[in-house]
């Protein structure tokens, strides 16, 4: 009986069609709820990112799936196998979960060579020496460390340790890959290169992956799906485009990319999902046509969210509804002008077209595209 056949026979997805299924996860640290009723699923072969600032519970969630933490309530199921369910007293030891994991510090064992590091999971699984050697060579080639097999881990650069850690995580073809902020110790340039590399390799081996990061750019580049977390709770789940274009609340809107966030109140619903929102800022009042988020009825308190690139700024009043403000800062960046525009007490962040030629001190008219002006949960 081999691992492949027996595990394969049980490899069912859950009713919802999810390969990884996390239900009602709760984890207490002392009096704090580090993870507070978190549920999500990951379809087989997909790449999911848990995104949030430090202390949002994303790493705790990952550690719970890995089995390096015991959880206080909820259920974790992967490939139809129940990993942990405290209510039923079930806790599968981390080594029996068949997971590959890449740690923040890479955790490459310094007393072994690169090849020994990568061979370790296979040795633990009592695989024949000849097969181990072949698979280690294969996977080292895949991550681009073919020449480094006999180097000691301490002789590798940060980026190379990263690749070795990835090789070690995927060599046993685990059910699931977990990444705990693996790129955060690399410098910017290497990080950008490794994002694409990691994504390529994950795609090539096709292992379902969960990735933890606080870097929104990383999340947008790599993920099939993103979960934005804050204070132990899920704020939003969706594809990168959806999260960026349709944030459900001010938190997500602010965390992913840059947004103008302005408090207001829905005064009328003009069509399903469309309406007008009144915003005020230090004596200035405006009524803006918006897309309404979930639960935004007439009279509801809301926050409007507009990305800087969706604000059109011009020196001429082209007619129609627009906001009249004053440019207080204009930084020419080549492909755009990064502007701050004062409107009452509010400062709009505007990414203006370089040909708009805005300068500080000038009067300017801002026009908002109703399709990209969102009224979201405050």
């Amino acid at each position, binding site marked *: *009986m*081999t*691992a492949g056949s*027996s*595990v394969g026979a*049980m490899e069912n997805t859950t009713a919802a069609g999810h390969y990884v299924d996390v239900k009602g996860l709760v984890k207490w640290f002392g009096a704090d709820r580090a993870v507070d009723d978190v549920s999500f699923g990951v379809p087989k072969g997909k790449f999911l990112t848990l995104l949030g600032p430090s202390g949002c519970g994303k790493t705790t969630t990952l550690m719970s799936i*890995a*089995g*390096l933490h015991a959880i206080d309530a909820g259920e974790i199921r992967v490939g139809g*196998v*129940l990993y942990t*369910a405290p209510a*039923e*007293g*079930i*806790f*599968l*030891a*981390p*080594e*029996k*979960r*068949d*997971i*590959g*994991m890449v*740690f*923040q*510090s890479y*955790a490459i*064992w*310094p*007393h072994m060579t690169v090849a020994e590091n990568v061979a*370790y*999971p296979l040795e*633990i*699984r*009592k*695989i024949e020496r000849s097969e181990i050697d072949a698979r280690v060579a294969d996977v080292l080639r895949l991550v681009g460390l073919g020449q480094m097999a006999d180097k000691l881990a301490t002789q590798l650069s940060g980026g190379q340790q990263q690749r070795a*850690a990835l090789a*070690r*995580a995927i060599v*046993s073809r685990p059910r699931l890959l*977990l990444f705990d902020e693996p790129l955060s110790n690399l410098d910017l340039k290497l990080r950008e290169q490794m994002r694409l590399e990691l994504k390529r390799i994950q795609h090539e081996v096709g292992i379902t992956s969960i990735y933890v990061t606080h870097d929104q750019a990383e999340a947008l580049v790599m993920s099939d799906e993103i979960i934005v977390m804050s204070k132990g709770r899920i704020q939003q789940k969706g594809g990168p485009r959806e999260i960026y274009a349709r944030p459900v609340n001010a938190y997500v809107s602010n965390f992913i990319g840059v947004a103008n966030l302005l408090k207001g109140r829905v005064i009328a619903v003009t069509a399903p999902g469309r309406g007008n929102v009144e915003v005020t800022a230090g004596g200035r009042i405006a009524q803006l046509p918006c897309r309404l988020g979930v639960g935004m009825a007439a009279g509801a308190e809301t926050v409007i969210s507009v990305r800087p690139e969706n604000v059109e700024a011009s020196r001429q009043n082209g007619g129609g509804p627009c906001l009249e403000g004053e440019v207080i800062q204009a930084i020419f960046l080549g492909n755009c002008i990064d502007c701050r525009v004062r409107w009452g007490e509010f400062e709009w962040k505007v990414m203006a077209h370089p040909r708009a030629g805005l300068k500080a001190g000038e009067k300017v008219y801002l026009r908002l595209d109703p399709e990209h002006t969102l009224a979201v949960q405050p």
Partner: protein
Amino acid sequence: MTVQTISADVGQSPISSRWRSLVTQEAVATLIVSVIVAAAVILPLFTLVVSSFQVLDSGGFDTTWGLDNYKTLFTDRIIPKAFVNTLLISAGSTVVATFFGVSLAWINARTNSPGRDRMEPFNLIPFFLSPFVGAIAWHNLAGGKTGLLNSWAHDFLGVHGNLLNVDNIYGVIWVTGLFFSPLVYLFVVGSLRRMDPSLEDSARTTGAGLLRTAMTVTLPLVAPGILSGAIIVFVTSAGDFGVPFKLCAPYGWQTLTTQIFSKAVGDDANQYLGAAMSMALGVITVFLIWIQQSYIAPRSFTTVTGKGFRPNVIDLGGWKWLAFAFNLSFILFAVVLPIFCLLVVSLHPVWQAEIIPSDLTLHNYEKTLFWWRPDHIQAATNGIVNSFILAFLGATIAMILSLVVSYMIHRTRGFGSRLLDFLCVVPVGFPGIVLAMGVLVTYIKTPIYATLWIILLGYITRFFPYGQRNVSSVMLAISEELDQSSRMAGASWFTTLRRITIPLLKPGIFAGWVLLFIIFLRELSMSIILYTSGTETLSVGVYYLTNYENETLTSALSMVQTVVLLVCVFVFRRVAGREALTA
């Protein structure tokens, strides 16, 4: 773990998974070690407390409950004086050791005194040698009747009578202070070396002079180190048995330790009174160690940033030769003269405070070393064999224990790990002779009494925290993720320990092992309470010879012990480097 097991476990029913999830290797090991540590530490101390309230009746057979033992501490003819003597010796030794320790540390770390890089190993040698042997050597160097220095003073300087006499309480202070100077040195030299030089530089830039900077910046930053070292010396001196036993007890100055010893094994043995005296001594030392651990030690970390700095070196000008001479004299007093004296005395058939070249013989070594010779002295030869057995077994068992305990303190969280951390500090606070009384009264009616096992148990209980600190310091430097990634790779807790954790900790484990090996080879104050005929240790052998034989035989065995210890120190320095000592 095989592949088959992985898939089989996954498929098990919830009921058996529940059972399996509770009984893990980790949980079983944690439980076993916690129970062992708790029993080894708590049981003797608990029994000690209990038996201190048991009063032996006049017949010497039955006991009743009461406070009479504690009353005796005040009303006895000797004990109150012994108490005062102990305090005097501790205070005096602390002053001597702090004087030498701080000035030597400063000379070596911060001045341009010649040869300062070469001095340190020699300054630390007394730390590894037995103070008891030091007392024997100094007795022969400057004793009231037999002093080599005295006869040299007579021959070369024409001094009449005795110039020096260490056979008194001042001699005890001198020898104890000399031998414990490295303790202060180690506490201070680290902070002096690793102090961020910009701290002093910024004081200088504000206009403070050299002296003012030293008094307002340097000294306050090093003060916690000095205070820590001083407290450790005070406590260690109060618990030391060998030096007062050799130098002042025979001449009418009893200390608490010599009194505890006579109550434990003497003709008027009364363990219950001994227990009460041990309690009195233990309470004082534990209180001081508690202050050091909880208030002073945490502060000393704030003075160092952990980065490697090149500290400011002060140019002493012509005074550097005085500093050099000062350092040399310390090495002369604490290392060279004592060892030279042991060697010289051990080569004479009879010691008359004079070197007689025609008399030199190796006969003393034959009698103490070669147990196959018909005229060997059994206590000495037994001692050598037993000490090596104890040191080897003890260091090995203690390091295994240290490894698991360190793992649980640093890799698991919660109440259990904090309790273990506490239990590891407790034995450090008790003098060996106090803990030995506890072990004695606990196990006196069990089969391990009068075997090597009871000594082994005592050694491990008292000293495994030293090994544990060696392991812990390395473990703290190793990321927990290295262990976790092994678990994620499919390795069990035990396999992870065997293939990842232990190989990574090897330097710390080996350094701790050698340190314990050294400590066990010279241990006296526990062995002297726990030994019986046949289970003598090396130091007990020396005690036996000094008590029942002559100075020349004593010096021979002392010399053997010293040489063995020096070899171990050499090995230790090779494997551990200087930092391992300060842990």
